[in-house]
């Protein structure tokens, strides 16, 4: 690790320069996610807002797709960031990697433009191939699906071949296997069937096995690298714990798929399987609590990068509350019968995605920026530290406001719409017009404004942090 050199060009390796490109697109898409989320939120309060121009369905689709893609770009960027360092050799196919970045970004731009300008098509196969697939989270048309798989495979090739040429660390091994699963699982969503039960059965393979299994392990790899690099935790310990986490996460997560198979036409045995593995899913979280306390007492933690450390701590809490507490509150089928498909799900989704994934990518951005700005000081008394502190505060205050508001709306909805009125059209609107629901949506919007303000501050901070800093970074005794 070269400590000096104020020009980034001297110290950054090829993968890291490429990573900065991915991070830039990721942050732009994070902004798009905020924007379209706000528009969709306003439509709950003022249904005529942009009616017939940019309808709720379009805003909502862009809101959730921007999230998936920005997190994916953040993950890919993070992996390119650590790749050469971890493998000990330059990336095998850097020109290919650069080409793929531009292809991927261009594809995203085209898909977004088609979503915005064409929006919908006739009920034909051509619509699915060219405009939208119309399936939540994976609305991208089929041509883009194929493009995504090609991009992920090229990415996989680069990662696997680079590790193969250099040293295949345990982190590298887990990462490569995880990427195989990531690409393979996506194929499960790439077919058309008139049978909606079959459709959703395989659709959950993509959504659940990405979000609640392979993404978690990917984040585990990033976290493992981050712990070694920024806090100097011994590699062997980190890698053993990575395997422990993989065992716990895949052990509870793969068959945890069952908790999505309660109501879509799938057999009743999924009730007990889903319930059983949902009861297990908090175990990895308990393990992390014990281990974190152990580590905090064991090592004298010296942070060389305060913003990154703050976001890693935020990830621990966010993951615990979003996935653990919010997940378990409504996951048993005995209660999920009434909460399924209400604002409950939205409340859980917001907190879990932000808490488990957005926080981790942001933490990694700060790790990367520290080096990008010339390995500058990011400990205490950092110049302009108020920005990252206020950004983290506003983003969390906004998120918590949104999540609590949707929780109250969802609670009312589960009672009036689902339990009493039995989910009829009348029941739905009776619940949507209820005072608790309307006030929930109002507060959700306020939370959205606060969150968006936090995003603006975060983006500003990412653009400027460390620029006026002249001290060099605190050296962490690595490995």
């Amino acid at each position, binding site marked *: 690790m070269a400590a000096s050199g104020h020009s980034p060009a001297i110290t950054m390796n090829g993968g890291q320069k490429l990573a900065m490109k991915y991070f830039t697109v990721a942050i732009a898409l994070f902004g798009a996610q905020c924007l379209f989320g706000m528009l969709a939120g306003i439509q709950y309060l003022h249904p005529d807002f942009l009616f017939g121009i940019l309808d709720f369905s379009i805003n909502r689709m862009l809101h959730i797709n921007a999230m998936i893609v920005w997190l994916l770009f953040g993950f890919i960027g993070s992996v390119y960031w650590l790749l050469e360092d971890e493998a000990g050799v330059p990336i095998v196919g850097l020109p290919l990697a650069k080409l793929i970045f531009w292809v991927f970004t261009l594809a995203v731009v085209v898909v977004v433009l088609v979503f915005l300008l064409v929006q919908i098509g006739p009920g034909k196969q051509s619509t699915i191939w060219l405009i939208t697939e119309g399936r939540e989270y994976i609305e991208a048309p089929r041509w883009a699906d194929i493009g995504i798989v090609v991009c992920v495979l090229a990415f996989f090739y680069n990662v696997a071949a680079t590790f193969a040429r250099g040293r295949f660390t345990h982190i590298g091994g887990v990462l490569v296997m995880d990427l195989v699963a990531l690409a393979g699982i996506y194929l499960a969503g790439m077919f058309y069937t008139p049978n909606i039960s079959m459709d959703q059965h395989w659709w959950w393979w993509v959504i659940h096995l990405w979000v609640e299994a392979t993404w978690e392990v990917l984040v585990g790899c990033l976290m493992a690298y981050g712990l070694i690099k920024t806090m100097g935790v011994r590699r062997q310990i980190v890698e053993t714990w990575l395997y422990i986490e993989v065992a716990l996460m895949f052990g509870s997560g793969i068959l945890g798929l069952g908790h999505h198979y309660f109501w879509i036409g799938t057999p009743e045995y999924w009730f007990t399987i889903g319930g059983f593995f949902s009861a297990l899913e*908090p175990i990895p979280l*308990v393990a992390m*609590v*014990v281990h974190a*306390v152990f580590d905090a*007492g*064991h090592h004298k933690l010296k942070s060389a990068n305060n913003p990154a450390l703050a976001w890693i701590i935020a990830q621990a809490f966010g993951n615990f509350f979003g996935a653990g507490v919010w997940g378990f509150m409504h996951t048993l089928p*005995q209660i999920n019968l009434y909460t399924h498909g209400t604002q409950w799900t939205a409340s859980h989704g917001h907190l879990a995605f932000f808490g488990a994934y957005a926080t981790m990518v942001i933490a990694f951005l700060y790790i990367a920026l520290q080096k990008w700005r010339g390995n500058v000081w990011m400990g205490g008394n950092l110049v302009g530290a108020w920005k990252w502190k206020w950004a983290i505060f506003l983003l969390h205050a906004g998120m918590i406001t949104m999540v609590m508001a949707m929780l109250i709306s969802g*609670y009312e909805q589960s009672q009036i719409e689902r339990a009493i009125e039995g989910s009829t059209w009348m029941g739905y609107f009776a619940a949507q017009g209820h005072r608790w629901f309307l006030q929930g949506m109002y507060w959700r919007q306020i939370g959205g404004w606060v969150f968006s303000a936090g995003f603006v501050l975060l983006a500003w901070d990412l653009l400027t942090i460390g620029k006026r800093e002249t001290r060099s970074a605190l050296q962490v005794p690595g490995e």
Partner: protein
Amino acid sequence: MLEPVKLANFFIVFFSAAAVILFGATYALIFAWSRIKARPGLMPLAYVAYMGLFISVLVLAFAAHLFHNELWSFIVLLMLAGYLIAPHAIWHLCIGTHAETEAAPSLNISQQH
């Protein structure tokens, strides 16, 4: 057979389910804290948190009719046992994984058991 939660018990179910996870984490937290700081006086507090978890699991189980069915009863028992043992097991794992190449005496964590 599934017996859905009664309308009047919705809040109890949400609340007790959240309490299960929160007490579980509190138990794990105090347990680990007591061990790492070598303060056995804190340990009873950890078990108070576990009692909270125990009660929450039972409340959840009754409100969601989990004892009306063998499979669900088994899951309840498994949770009670699993959450009790997990922090102990993870603790031993922490010591085991960290002790491998390090000199142990700096910490007197294994003395109290």
